């Protein structure tokens, strides 16, 4: 029943030279960190959106493609690290909300999708 602190909203909206990004931050509560099952769930969810979605962990220099399971696994994000998500595109807002929820709810098993 671990619930991460979700920080998302208008105040997180930032604008960069590349256009408007929607961003979100969430603490990774998953017991073993960002491992195979969470990574698969996260990338599967990310792929449902048209937006370009990037994530990074613990303020690393590089942002990586949230739709690549190899890259998400390579984050090696441990438990309690802060996952940052940024998205660009029409459904960027919905994507960030959905992904933050997924991490905050500790990657719940959902019914048939």
């Amino acid at each position: 029943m671990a619930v991460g602190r979700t920080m998302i909203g208008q105040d997180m909206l930032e604008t960069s030279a590349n256009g408007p990004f929607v961003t979100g931050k969430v603490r990774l509560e998953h017991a073993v960190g960002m491992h195979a099952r969470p990574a698969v769930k996260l990338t599967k969810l990310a792929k449902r959106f048209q937006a370009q979605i990037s994530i990074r962990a613990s303020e690393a220099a590089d942002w990586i493609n949230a739709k690549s399971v190899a890259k998400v696994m390579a984050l090696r994000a441990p438990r309690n690290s802060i996952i940052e998500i940024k998205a660009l595109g029409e459904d960027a807002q919905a994507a960030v909300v959905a992904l933050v929820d997924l991490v905050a709810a500790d990657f719940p098993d959902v019914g048939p999708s």
Partner: protein
Amino acid sequence: MKMRVDAAGLAYRGRTASIGFARGPFIRIGSGADRERSPGSPTEEALALREAIQLSSAQIAELAAAAGGEAAQILEFQVALLEDEDFLEPVFATIDHGVPADSAWSSALDEQIADYRSASDEYLQARSSDLTDLRDRVVGILRGSERQPVRIPSGAIVCADDLPPSRFLEIDWSGGGGLALLRGSPTSHVAMLARARGIPMVVQLGSVPDAAVALLDGEGATLELDPSAEQIGPFERRREIHRKSRASARAVLRRPAATWHGERIRLLINIQRVADLEHADAQYADGIGLMRTEFLLAGSDEIPDEETQYRAYDAVLRWAGQRPVTIRTFDAGGDKPVPGFTSDGEANPFLGVRGIRLCLSRPDIFTVQLRALARAAVRGNLKVMFPMVTLAGELEAARKLFAEAVKGLQAEGIGAMLPELGIMVEVPAAALAISDFQAAFFSIGSNDLAQYVLACDRSNGALATLIDPLHPAVLELIARTAEHGRRSGISVSLCGDMAGDPRCIPALLRCGLRELSVNAPALAQIKQAIDLLGGGCGSG
């Protein structure tokens, strides 16, 4: 080669790779992932990989559906990776540059596997086996090999085109059996494994049809298929003669130590794994001249951790008591590839990054072994040797890593010490510049030494007549090494196949060797051979 024995059954003759007799069900297997494929153009290769990936996805999805639950979720990771364009893109880019699909795929996965293996976290390390599975599945499809493993009954005569050592190790030989290879070579690594296990093996049989039952005669180098009673009778008589002659040779073992011209000849044994010590004759050995450690790399998808390795080394030292035990560090590479460890795609793996070269390039893996050995060193009479040493600097680099491992363990309050360090003499340069090495002992690896001196790939059956270990050039290097040892008081032994071949014994003794290490099944025969040469009467 086909030869007719009579109308009832078919008989084929090949070359002997390991003596002994086997009678049992005839099982033909594919050579698995080692099968060669001829790559097409980059476009064709890219298409082949796309198709193999699609087929793999479908297969895994099917497996996941059947497995359900936790297993299904783990398999999902494999499927996700197959759908990961970021991951696939560089693979296709490599193919575009002319690399065959299977090599491109393997090296991309090997990189990931190595990465996961080196992770500090056990959970991540465990993922490397998923990736190994995925790598082999796709490569298997690309190379057109069947995925479903053939069940091999106990005591079977296993027939294959050729067999990689890893496949040999997967087969359960505890019930006996034999190996009949259509190609293959008596000097290959798999032949060496067969001799060590006492499994009869015949190679270069050409082509043979399917059959239900077979007789394999490792001495006569014959394979008889669906034999008639007229064939079985003589076969069983030959088998009985073989058994009796082995029994009489075994009586020699209980006699005092072997001597030659009044000099004591020390006979040690080679082991490939701890279970080899269970051989009835092992107890008569003067020690262990070569413990190979590659078995630790086979079977499991993971490089075993320090504790697992330590337990294996410790078990052997406890068995040996006061007797010396020489353990050789990982000798991977060449014809002994280890996924995630050895480098793929070398044009000449025998001349590539193998043995100590590989270990020094992978201190992460090497250090774990050195730590386990340093801990074992306090438990008995341990010596450690490094394979494929070319330069004195390699021995010193390994010694430095070893000393650091000892220091680290001692700082952690764990008992450890630096054992005596020696080298394998198998690179001709090392034999020629033997006085360069500050080694505590030398062990001549005659198989590789002969292969390099004679410029013959020992796994190439077509060169079998050329790769003669009794060639004067090979003997010259052995004699020089022995002479150097004699002058400087450093012990020199020989642990290659020559030591286990009675025909080579006189030459080896004349070269000045007084210490030989052989597989336990050959111990009796070699002791008998020395006794016959030396007039018999032991002095010890």
